[in-house]
């Protein structure tokens, strides 16, 4: 019951924020130099055609009315035509979003699966050599943009030692009918184990490059939280009752530190979505982020608006999920009887 209340409040806030995002993007898109009608029609249009298009795009109406049309179109799922691909923006997003999500989700899993344990080890051996090594390494991973790590990884594991593929999502000899757009899922639907392995092989290096700075962030955060947890009386109590250090670390310290970590890791998801712009470019990954770079470079207005809206919505939904997860893990929220 309480989760539901909390969820609906969060959902309402999310919708409100999404509304704000749409205003922000709309304003940015309208203050840019250049005539959207002229851009949409291309180089050979006559003045009369441009005037006609201006009416079609409602550019002759006041800003407020323009925004109303913009939101109306959004709700109808009509984001206009992309100049970059000559197709409806929604078609593009539908085709490219799964590839980016696949990459980002895998990177997120790596971030948690590697970052959290690293942070826990670092906190557990605080002040000893393992801690120092992990701290310096994780600080280094957050100190270079992901495109630098991507280049380093490609150079080492694709060029010099050809262990991993250079581009693409699956071996070219394997054709998988798209169902969900997630290659890892589609290969399984098609019952192609070789395809699944090939897709995993292709996604591994980009996802790892993308996750590196996230791993660093997650590890540093977990370390700080766990050190905070180690100072809590209940850890001393566990020690007083003679539980082994390993049991204390795994059961008494890790789980309470996980809660604040997870909340922030939700924010780190934003960083992953952003960094995907850099990583997809290097790995020629046919995702929404690479598309985003393309359309931004080409000032493809409709596509920019669509891409930014979708990425923001994805990010907000991801945070909502993290929030839900945290409330499931955190009994304080689940049974918030006295605490609030």
């Amino acid at each position, binding site marked *: 019951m309480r989760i539901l209340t909390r969820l609906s409040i969060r959902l309402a*806030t999310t919708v*409100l*924020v*999404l509304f*704000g*995002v749409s*205003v*922000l*993007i709309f304003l*940015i*898109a309208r*203050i*840019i*130099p250049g005539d959207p009608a002229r851009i949409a029609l291309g180089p050979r249009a006559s003045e009369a055609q441009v005037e006609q298009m201006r009416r079609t795009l409602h550019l002759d109406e006041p800003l407020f009315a323009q925004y109303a049309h913009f939101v109306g179109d959004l709700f109808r799922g009509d984001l206009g035509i992309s100049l970059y691909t000559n197709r409806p923006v929604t078609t593009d997003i539908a085709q490219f979003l799964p590839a980016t999500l696949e990459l980002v989700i895998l990177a997120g899993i790596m971030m948690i699966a590697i970052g959290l344990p690293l942070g826990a080890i670092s906190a557990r051996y605080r002040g000893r050599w393992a801690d120092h090594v992990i*701290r*310096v390494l994780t*600080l*280094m991973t*957050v*100190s*270079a*943009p992901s*495109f*630098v790590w991507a*280049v*380093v990884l*490609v*150079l080492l594991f694709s*060029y*010099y030692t050809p262990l991993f593929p250079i581009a693409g999502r699956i071996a070219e000899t394997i054709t998988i009918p798209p169902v969900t757009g997630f290659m890892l899922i589609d290969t399984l639907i098609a019952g192609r184990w070789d395809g699944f392995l090939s897709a995993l092989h292709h996604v591994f290096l980009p996802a790892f490059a993308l996750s590196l700075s996230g791993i660093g962030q997650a590890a540093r955060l977990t370390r700080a939280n766990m050190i*905070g947890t180690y100072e809590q009386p209940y850890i001393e109590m566990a020690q007083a009752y003679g539980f082994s250090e390993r049991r204390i670390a795994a059961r008494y310290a890790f789980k309470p530190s996980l809660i604040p970590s997870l909340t922030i890791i939700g924010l780190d998801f*934003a*960083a992953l*979505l*952003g*960094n995907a*712009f*850099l990583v997809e*470019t*290097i790995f020629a990954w046919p995702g929404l982020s690479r598309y*985003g*770079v393309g*359309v*931004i*470079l080409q*000032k493809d*207005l409709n596509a*920019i608006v669509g891409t*930014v809206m979708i*990425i*923001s919505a994805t*990010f*907000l939904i991801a*945070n909502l999920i993290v929030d839900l997860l945290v409330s499931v893990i955190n009994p304080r929220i689940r049974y918030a009887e006295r605490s609030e």
Partner: protein
Amino acid sequence: MKRTATILLGNPLSVLGLILVGFVVLTALLADFIAPYPDHAGAVVDFVNANKPPSAEYWLGTDVVGRDILSRIFYAYRVSLGLGIVVLSIATPIGVVVGLLAGYIGGWTDYILMRITDVFLSIPPLVLALAIMGLLEPTLLNGMIAVTAMWWPWYARLVYNIARAEKVEGYVLAAEIIGGGRMHVMFREILPNCVPAIVTKMTLDFGFVILIASSLSFLGLGVQAPTPDLGSMVSEGTRYLPDSWWLTVFPGAAILIAVFGFNLIGDVLREVLEPD
């Protein structure tokens, strides 16, 4: 202040950080004197020496039009540092004012300001900067605008949380009772308590501004040629991999050195200035 200095100098990690940052700052300031080819920061082409691997003459090799990469890195540091200073000195005051207003006055002011902040925070930072940058002309000034737009909300959040906690503290109540105006309470009483957290964040952020700016220019949305810029040097170089690795690897390492230095210092500062 003195205590901070003592602590920074007493920790091997922050000493390493100070050395790295010192190196970056010095090379940026003294680029005119220490760069082997100071004119290579500008519109110079020397096709005879184009794309040469590292040698005694060009320590880090030359780029595809024959310019010394080491010299260009020094000048690129100058651009990065300038960008960092400008962005933080605009973003911080905006964020601080918004955070103080929302945190101290509360009520509707709080709600509206913080929802606006949420809007900015809910677009992944790099994406927001990219969108702004993509829609404007790619100039250094617009780059700064784009990065600033994504930066201030974080300071607003930080100051907001502190201001909310401090406004119920005794000294604030005391100041209100003796008739201190809102401005007085916000800027004279609460703000000083936010300073340590702000300073720490700024140190850490200096590195991140460099990182974000290099990401923008990596995607072709940053500083325009011939101004040297680390991100565009990497991006330019990736086309010539794996043969001409020096075009990519050295500018990439240069980013790492600068950001790593600031992060090391910021990390130690955080432990000292924010004990919890």
